[in-house]
């Protein structure tokens, strides 16, 4: 109803009121005599007509309610209560059950945990019934044609005609479940067969795959099939199910290649945590463990909390109250950030640094702590490798046998070495760390200079923590000297501490740190002193900001250095943590009994222990993202043998949109990598950007409709969470993930005439998935003793249970700080020196600072260092590369030293008038990754451009993507607040390699979005949130052809939030040499076993997706219909557009006190 109409009415009513008539009728000439006028004297005091109030009571009342688990990759896992009316979930709410969770001993978490929910969980009512639900199994027409034609191939290369591969531009067909299963099984079989044996290898070579990758297949085409349960920890049975499936495929491999079980190989499993670039890759380098962290409520016990590159209040929302409550009770909060962020507004102090300079900032703090002697010498001596001596000739640790004649190392007490073929004890029995005997040399002792006795003294791995203190040895941390070896040679030795101190003093004094990071020198000094004043009480939660840069591992090593120097590692209130997604599968130590159950001998007795045998191989997804190739530059293959990927010819994922829809370098993957893949399947309940490019999409139950239970836990909270079964009928023709995996397996079983394929999923058929869960629980230290029925019963009441970790909260390094266990490293201590050849070659044996690899105005990826005797990296020339080659590819392996001043005088190779902006893409409050970000109710609040009525028909949906830019930068570029702008990153390979202007693919890929004036970001630093759904061929077509103009694929309903492109138009894959070593010693995923080299989610590439250096080009004006200013700016309400009243308002000028 228009305002005008109401104004006319108003005049009439006023007139009537003026006449003293209590208007109880319509404005039509209704017969007033038929209506009884109401007498209302004072509506403040009393009101006679209240029976209508039942309307809202009726709306509020529900017929029933039930509990389900909401668990995207945010780490929280919230039990939610669904309120049902007429069989429909009408609304959702929290369970208020977290204050009732108990452990095996009857300890309880308090009601301070409640409520657990978020706006995205509430909006699930829009998703469960939304029009982007995958409503039945769907098959892409081109794929079906290829399958129906019998999978024809080029006889020379084995490749498939591209006419069948028009993903993103094709039509879709609804098929029955059996057909979907059969198609998938046949395709997998055909692909594995095609690429097996000598002929298969020839095909792969002919198709241009790197020879090393072809070799990695070991003659098995099954290696070209990749499976991924997205962040599998979120679903112990249903998401991990795809890894169990991969292991099971050894049966198919044996059948195809006609080999015995011992020679069979399963399919390949892709990583999760490291794939998301969530893994802080330096953690294993320092502590030996996957990640050092703590349940976030540990902040209760700290006095100083450094929220470092972590937008806590937008990404860990249900745990934000712990931070704000600690603050009000006296904890000082400091944000180390790249802009005045949401979390900055909750901190007492805010230090803004240049993005990607976190290692420098941390090293700058360390420099102050060391030079002012504020470090805890006793703690450092007992718990770190810093006192150990390094030979300056080899840069290797000095060894006891080199200086003590006839030295025999004592048997280690804190480590069990087991012989080849011997199995370690079950995870629940691993009271000690375990390693293969073959690794014995990795645990040799080291040597210190004992100042108390003025002598070189061997220190064994056992001698750490309180055991070391008992020895009475007092290492001289700054020792330098000449040592005569047993061999007769004389070598110079220096402590690691001394080498590090020299590096810091030369390159990262407070003044230098200020120049590099932008943080004022005084702030660096003050913060360092503050940390040193708060031993055991400085807690450092680190986020994904700094982790998504190429130098992420250096950032970890540097932050641990600060914590170790000041005795802030392993204490309830003093620790280092890294926070991203929900990776900590290790909490379910019993997973192997499910994932690698021996498919040749499946155990279908629910009460019997399954046999285990690992047939699947894992690999990092980053090679796929990088173009399905390893890192080969110049004359060197940088990807270690254990890391080598196989070519990707088939893939099946569940619970994932990050591998295609929101993959970094998305348009390169779509245009250059997908065409070589022959089978792409996704299991999902929502039509994502990944589904847009699939061949088969299996329709899953939503969380509210689960027909089988499942289980998850968390790295940020202490609860084990069950997924109770849903209490509503399925809304669409969907199946549970387990049924889907079972269905494909059975179709394979029919193909191979092998009943074991079906047996592997028997409990699914029996509706007894609980049996798998109980197996996992029984072998898990933190859960052993629980019955799955009890856990499920509680979950149905909205009450979780506690994981029985060593402590509540769970605190990494707790046992180590107590001296009960060593760290999972070679030395048993936290390590800052990496003597392995890969690190020496990279110039990173010491903790140094490297510039970001793309997000910098300076020369990318240089090592910031004056010449230093221990920094001796391999030069570009030694790799057969030119020193001046700063191209994107070569940059990844380029080892060039520049002093701080030289750095500041250098320039990014793309620097020109146009390319000079850093563009980064962190995560935000309105999505959990891309789940459930395109929902209308949450989307309309995502940023400033939401309009549910879409008055500006250019809006791709009810909301749209935007870039936050400093107003002065925008004005310089001639951009108004609300205008549309193109953002272009390095044209050599973005938005994708070999892009051509004027093509449809380029039109879809070029990033177009709104400008938002954002005063909180510094000059030259621009940002878009990572979460929004990017443009696809179909969404662009939708915007062009739909009458409503929505960027919504008319064929699939895929709803983009960009008119074209995506934030991923600016990103790409990066492979870092120090993350692909064969030599890093670290803990395996489960249990206390130490291993070496590649391990998915622990030691492998992580990608660096925040990095881009870009230019801006104005596209269209922001006002409605593309003319003039965006309305809030036109109204004078926006920064730099303020009208007079707004200016007065901003300074509180409408009020005068006294």
């Amino acid at each position, binding site marked *: 109803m228009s305002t005008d109409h109401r104004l006319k009415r108003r005049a009439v009513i006023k007139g009537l009121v003026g006449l003293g008539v209590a208007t109880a009728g319509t404005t039509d000439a209704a017969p007033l005599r038929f209506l009884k006028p109401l007498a209302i004297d*004072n509506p403040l005091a009393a009101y006679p007509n209240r029976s209508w109030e039942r309307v809202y009571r009726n*709306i509020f009342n529900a017929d029933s309610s039930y509990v389900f688990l909401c668990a995207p990759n945010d780490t929280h896992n919230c039990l939610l209560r669904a309120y049902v009316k007429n069989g429909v979930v009408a609304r959702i709410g929290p369970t208020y059950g977290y204050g009732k969770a108990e452990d095996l001993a009857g300890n309880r978490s308090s009601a301070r945990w409640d409520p657990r929910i978020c706006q995205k969980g509430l909006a699930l009512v829009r998703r469960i019934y939304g029009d982007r639900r995958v409503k039945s199994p769907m098959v892409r027409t081109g794929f079906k044609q290829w399958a129906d034609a019998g999978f024809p191939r080029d006889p020379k290369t084995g490749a498939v005609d591209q006419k069948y591969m028009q993903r993103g531009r094709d039509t879709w067909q609804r098929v029955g479940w059996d057909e979907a299963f059969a198609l998938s099984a046949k395709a997998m079989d055909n692909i594995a067969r095609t690429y097996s044996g000598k002929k298969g290898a020839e095909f792969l070579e002919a198709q241009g795959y790197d020879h090393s990758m072809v070799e990695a297949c070991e003659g098995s085409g099954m290696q070209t099939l990749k499976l991924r349960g997205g962040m599998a920890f979120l679903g112990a049975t249903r998401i991990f199910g795809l890894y169990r499936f991969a292991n099971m495929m050894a049966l198919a491999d044996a059948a195809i290649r006609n080999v015995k079980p011992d020679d069979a190989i399963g399919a390949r499993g892709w990583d999760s945590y490291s794939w998301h670039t969530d893994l802080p890759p330096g953690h294993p380098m320092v502590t030996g463990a996957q990640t050092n962290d703590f349940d976030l409520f540990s902040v209760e016990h700290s006095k100083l909390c450094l929220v470092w590159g972590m937008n806590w209040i937008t990404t860990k929302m249900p745990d934000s109250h712990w931070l704000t409550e600690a603050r009000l009770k*006296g904890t000082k909060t400091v944000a180390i950030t790249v802009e005045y962020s949401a979390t*900055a*507004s909750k901190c007492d102090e805010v230090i803004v640094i240049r993005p990607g300079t976190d290692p420098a900032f941390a090293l700058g703090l360390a420099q102050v702590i060391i030079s002012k002697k504020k470090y805890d010498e006793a703690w450092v001596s007992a718990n770190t490798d810093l006192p150990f001596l390094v030979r300056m000739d080899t840069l290797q640790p000095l060894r006891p046998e080199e200086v003590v004649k006839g030295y025999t190392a004592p048997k280690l007490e804190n480590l069990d070495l087991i012989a080849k073929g011997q199995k370690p004890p079950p995870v629940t029995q691993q009271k000690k760390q375990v390693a293969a005997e073959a690794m014995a040399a990795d645990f040799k002792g080291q040597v210190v200079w004992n100042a108390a006795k003025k002598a070189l003294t061997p220190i064994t791995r056992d001698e750490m923590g309180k055991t070391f203190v008992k020895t009475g040895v007092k290492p001289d941390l700054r020792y330098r000297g000449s040592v005569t070896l047993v061999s007769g040679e004389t070598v110079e030795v220096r402590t690691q501490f001394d080498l590090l101190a020299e590096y810091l003093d030369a390159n990262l004094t407070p003044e230098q740190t200020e120049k590099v990071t932008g943080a004022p020198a005084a702030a660096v000094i003050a913060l360092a002193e503050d940390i040193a004043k708060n031993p055991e009480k400085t807690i450092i939660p680190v986020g994904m900001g700094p982790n998504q840069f190429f130098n992420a591992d250096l950032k970890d090593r540097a932050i641990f250095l600060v914590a170790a120097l000041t005795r802030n590692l392993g204490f309830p209130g003093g620790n280092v943590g890294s926070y991203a997604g929900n990776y900590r599968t290790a909490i379910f130590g019993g997973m192997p009994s499910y994932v690698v159950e021996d498919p040749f001998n499946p155990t279908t007795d629910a009460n019997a222990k399954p046999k285990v045998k690992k047939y699947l191989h894992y690999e990092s997804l980053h090679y796929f993202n990088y173009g399905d190739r390893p890192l080969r530059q110049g004359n060197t293959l940088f990807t270690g043998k254990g890391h080598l990927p196989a070519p990707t010819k088939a893939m099946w994922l569940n619970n994932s949109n990050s591998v295609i829809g929101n993959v970094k370098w998305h348009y390169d993957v779509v245009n250059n990598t997908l065409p070589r893949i022959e089978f792409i399947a996704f299991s999902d309940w929502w039509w994502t950007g990944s589904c847009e490019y699939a061949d088969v999409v299996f329709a899953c139950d939503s969380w509210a409709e689960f027909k089988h239970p499942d289980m998850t836990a968390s790295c940020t909270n202490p609860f084990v969470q069950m997924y109770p079964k849903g209490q509503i009928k399925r809304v669409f023709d969907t199946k549970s993930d387990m049924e889907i995996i079972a269905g494909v397996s059975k179709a394979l079983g029919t193909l191979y005439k092998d009943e074991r394929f079906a047996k592997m999923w028997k409990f699914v058929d029996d509706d007894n998935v609980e049996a798998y869960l109980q197996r996992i629980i029984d072998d898990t*230290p933190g859960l052993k003793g629980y019955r799955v029925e009890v856990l499920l019963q509680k979950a149905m009441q909205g009450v979780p249970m506690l994981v029985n970790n060593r402590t509540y909260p769970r605190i990494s390094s707790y046992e180590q700080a107590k001296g009960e266990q060593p760290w999972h490293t070679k030395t048993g201590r936290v390590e800052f020196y990496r003597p392995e050849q890969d690190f020496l070659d990279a110039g990173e044996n010491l903790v140094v600072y490297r510039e970001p690899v793309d997000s910098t105005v300076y020369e990318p990826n240089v090592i910031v260092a004056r010449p230093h005797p221990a920094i001796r990296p391999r030069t570009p020339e030694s790799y057969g590369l030119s020193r001046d080659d700063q191209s994107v590819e070569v940059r990844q392996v380029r080892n060039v030293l520049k002093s701080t001043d030289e750095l500041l005088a250098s320039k990014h190779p793309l620097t020109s008038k146009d390319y000079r902006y850093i563009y980064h893409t962190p995560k935000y409050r309105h999505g959990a990754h891309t789940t459930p970000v395109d929902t209308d109710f949450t989307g309309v609040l995502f940023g400033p451009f939401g309009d549910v009525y879409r008055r500006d028909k250019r809006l791709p949906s009810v909301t749209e993507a935007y870039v936050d830019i*400093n107003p002065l930068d925008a004005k310089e570029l001639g951009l108004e607040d609300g205008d549309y702008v193109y953002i272009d990153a390095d044209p050599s390979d973005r938005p994708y390699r070999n892009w051509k202007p004027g093509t449809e693919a380029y039109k879809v890929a070029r990033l177009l979005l709104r400008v938002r004036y954002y005063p909180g970001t510094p000059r030259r630093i621009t940002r878009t949130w990572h979460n929004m759904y990017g443009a696809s061929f179909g969404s662009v077509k939708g915007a062009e052809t739909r009458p409503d103009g929505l960027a919504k694929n008319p064929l699939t309903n895929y709803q983009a939030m960009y008119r074209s492109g995506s934030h991923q138009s600016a990103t790409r894959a990066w492979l870092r040499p120090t993350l692909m070593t064969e030599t890093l010693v670290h803990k395996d995923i489960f249990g206390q076993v130490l291993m070496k080299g590649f391990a998915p989610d622990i030691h492998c590439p992580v990608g660096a997706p925040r990095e881009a250096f870009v230019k801006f080009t104005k596209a269209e004006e922001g006002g409605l219909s593309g003319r003039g200013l965006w309305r809030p700016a036109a109204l004078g*309400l926006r920064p730099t557009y303020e009208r007079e*009243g707004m200016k007065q308002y901003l300074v509180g000028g409408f009020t005068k006190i006294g």
Partner: protein
Amino acid sequence: MSNVKNWQLKRDMQYAYDEARPKKQWAIVFDLNKCIACQTCTLACKTTWTSGKGQEYMFWNNVETKPFGSYPLGWDVNVLEKLGKQEWAKNGTYQGKTIFEAAPPEERAVHFAPTDDDWMYPNHGEDDCVGAQNTGGHVGSLPHDKWFFYLPRTCAHCTYPACLAACPRKAIYKREEDGIVLIDQSRCKGYGECVRACPYKKSMYNPYTRVSEKCVGCYPAVEQGIQPQCVVNCIGKIRVMGFINPPWKARKDNPVDYLVHTKQIALPYYPQLGLEPNIYYIPPIHADRAYLRQMFGPMVDQAVDRYRTLAKDPTTAGLLTLIGSTDRILHRFTVNNGVAAGFDERDAELVKVPVVEPVIERPAWDEKLETIRTNTP
């Protein structure tokens, strides 16, 4: 016009009807230092009440970033511009005009009339700070020199509602039992006077049903002793809903009375407008004082100082960690020896929490279950 007492202004003022305070008055206190703008409250309200036709644009509860955000566009700068600069005495007496007192003769209140377009962009200004940022920004102390904060807003169920005063049909009323202000959905004719009059813009017109609607204080829940949806769903745990007494009847063991009257750290918003609103805010300690005084009145500095010294105030600190721990309405609270507890109207204990969540250590080896216990599994 009648003479009524407005304790927030420390004086009498003019209003359309005689003073009539309800038996109990619904009130919410928000600790803005804890608000994270997660919008969970917004969605709780929307999915419960405003997901129908004609309600698409409505957010009875919204959260906006201040100073640049506003829903509808410019609502507060607009009404302040209309009212003009006004003054408080240092002793807290309001010396300026309220919107009622400043109203032109044919109007009930000074007001700004929103157009349909003003309801677009409900979250514009999200996280926009005042002041430009240079590289090397360092905010070393409080208050911050560049800042923003979050302001969640429901209807304030005012003691002297402008909507109620403006309705020509007297179709808006205040419930005697709890002070919740409602638009009678059966008698409203959609004139929109309430939409124009409410300075907070919490009355909204539904173009499909053609009547106006507003926050109902979740009375169906409140009648059952449960807090409103926006409170129950607040994961920032910033809110406590209760029944506030006027200062002359305040009970210091009642959470809302305690925060508003006893501790005086929770302040009404834009009290100068004269509605005696019943939502109260603990001001954000990092924001500009002058801006805060414009929004919350002259008591801001005292409130901020008291919040900053909570480490030495275990009762208040305890209460602020207790709130949000139960979905039921607290009538009384206690904080003793590090334990905070809340009670219902019959004094039954509803919830008890430790002010500091304890650390529990389990043995490294569980003899009975024969398993290790580890923090690095």
